[in-house]
């Protein structure tokens, strides 16, 4: 047993270490040591808790705790080791579901053993206020579990990405939510004895998570995950208030802010409104993720791998613009080989990353890092956009929306106002994609028909490998 003061300080210290671990991510140089600080923070938090409960431990509870940590640690470490980098969106979604599950289970446990959390009132029951708080935690946790599970399934391909529009789904959601509130009130009035009502809340909340998320298209899942991640952070902070734990409050707030900011960044990059997203308003203007292009038959210039190799060999500056298609095709390693070959020929190479290229924030950067592209060759939109005018070739691989000039010129376009990469300013634009089809936003790209554009229609990995051969 340690003093309450020391325990509170230790929890706060671990929260400070978490802050520093996120701060470390401000540059790749400090990120690795930041991550270690995060691990240290978690170790301190766990050790503090063990120290607090030490006097009440019994062999069987020690077994449960050690067993849970060991088993969970093993599973987690294995997942972390095995997951391919292209699966990061799914993995984050899966972890998110587990985090929500943990919150849900903790709320349920607190319902059964209020005394362990000092939630019991004088009569031995649970106070109405604590019951409401626990139900809120359970609700948020359960929605996160099932919502993230759907997001995972859509991203991982276990479920079709297309939106599933249930009839009268808004009414359904309202009914579900109303029932949850009703059950919570009933539970609070029963002074916590109506066990079934608690589990009914959990079940309805799980259903609500599903009905909220299935109408949303698969390509929007990254935003869903960030928002659910944010919710789970605020849920942890709320639990921190209930349990009076500084570590939970600060850490939950960090996670909540992180999710909120990331979803804000994604929405801004995609030109959608933040509030429509937070309110779950994805339903209204769903876009089919794989909608195929809006094409009257206009002539395009098509090229082969040999053409591309010839053009780039004779260029002095090539800017590579990767997009979602590069991730799908897993073309990053071949791309790096191509860039190396070109560098050996004396060509200057840079990578231009749009803030929402790919399907999650930082997606392209991780894949390029995996292919050992040094991060100082990789530039953000605002740092490189003016350089296209001085480049001979823009090599656009699997990207589409992030180059679409409609965002600059066509006020009726759904992406009007979104910042885009000005690839058309380069001498020649090479587009590697499989068809003239559209991307995530489901709109055609007039660049394909420009005079200085050459389409390299093929799977991205195959095309780049052929170019490497031709070089």
């Amino acid at each position, binding site marked *: 047993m340690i003093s309450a003061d020391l325990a509170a300080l230790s929890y706060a210290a671990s929260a400070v270490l978490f802050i520093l671990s996120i701060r470390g991510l401000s540059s790749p140089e400090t990120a690795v040591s930041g991550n270690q600080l995060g691990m240290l923070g978690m170790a301190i938090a766990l050790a503090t808790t063990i120290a607090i409960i030490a006097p009440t431990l019994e062999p069987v509870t020690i077994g449960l705790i050690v067993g849970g940590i060991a088993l969970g640690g093993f599973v987690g470490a294995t997942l972390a080791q095995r997951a391919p980098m292209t699966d990061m969106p799914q993995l984050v979604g899966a972890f998110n579901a587990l985090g929500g599950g943990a919150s849900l289970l903790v709320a349920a*446990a*607190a319902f059964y053993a209020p005394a362990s959390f000092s939630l019991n009132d004088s009569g031995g029951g649970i106070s109405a206020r604590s019951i409401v708080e626990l139900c809120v935690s359970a609700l948020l946790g359960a929605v996160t579990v099932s919502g993230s599970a759907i997001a995972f399934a859509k991203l991982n391909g276990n479920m079709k990405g297309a939106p599933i529009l249930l009839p009268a789904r808004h009414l359904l959601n309202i009914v579900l939510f109303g029932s949850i509130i009703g059950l919570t009130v009933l539970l609070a009035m029963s002074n916590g004895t109506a066990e079934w009502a608690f589990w009914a809340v959990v079940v309805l909340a799980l259903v609500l998570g599903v009905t909220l998320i299935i109408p949303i298209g698969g390509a929007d899942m990254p935003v869903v995950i960030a928002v659910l991640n944010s919710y789970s952070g605020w849920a942890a902070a709320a639990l921190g208030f209930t349990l009076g734990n500084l570590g939970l409050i*600060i*850490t939950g707030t960090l996670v909540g802010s992180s999710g909120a900011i990331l979803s804000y960044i994604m929405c801004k990059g995609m030109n959608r409104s933040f509030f429509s997203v937070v309110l779950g308003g994805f339903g209204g203007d769903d876009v089919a993720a794989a909608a195929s292009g809006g094409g009257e038959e206009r002539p395009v210039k098509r090229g082969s791998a040999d053409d591309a190799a010839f053009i780039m060999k004779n260029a002095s500056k090539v800017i590579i613009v990767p997009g979602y298609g590069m991730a799908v095709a897993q073309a990053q390693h071949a791309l790096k080989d191509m860039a190396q070959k070109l560098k050996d020929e004396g060509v200057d190479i840079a990578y231009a990353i749009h803030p929402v290229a790919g399907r999650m924030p930082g997606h392209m950067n*991780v894949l390029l*890092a995996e292919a*050992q592209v040094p991060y100082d060759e990789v530039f953000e939109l605002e740092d490189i956009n003016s350089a296209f005018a001085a480049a001979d070739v823009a090599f656009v691989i699997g990207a589409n929306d992030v180059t679409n000039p409609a965002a600059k010129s066509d006020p009726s376009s759904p992406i009007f106002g979104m910042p885009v990469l000005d690839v058309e300013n380069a001498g020649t634009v090479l587009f590697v994609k499989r068809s003239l089809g559209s991307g995530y936003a489901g709109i055609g790209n007039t660049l394909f028909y420009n005079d200085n554009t050459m389409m390299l229609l093929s799977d991205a990995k195959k095309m780049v490998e052929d170019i490497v051969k031709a070089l």
Partner: protein
Amino acid sequence: MKFLTALLCAASLAMPAFAASSLQGVDATVFLVVIFVLAVFVGYYVVWSVTPALHTPLMSVTNAISAIVVVAAVIAAAATAGGAEVGRETWTARGLGAAAVFFASINIFGGFLVTRRMLAMYRKKS
């Protein structure tokens, strides 16, 4: 980073010598609310300071640290009946707690390790 650390260290060394004398009447919730509000500021700034190139590791590391609920899960897994015989309720709490420990541990180990794996890949031009 160095500057902030210096500020923090210098300041923390100086402070714990002082103590509040007239605050014992204030409810702890007030402090928690203030701490929460300040944490919102810190979260806002610290997350915006993350470079966009590391947004994916940011997502995985927040997965890991949100598993801080493990502290509550451990308490649940170690639930006692407060001297009385351990009955169904306590066992249920323990079981739920153990499952929560299991889930949270997956997040902790998985989150931190996958972040480490990603970060190890970011290299400067040699």
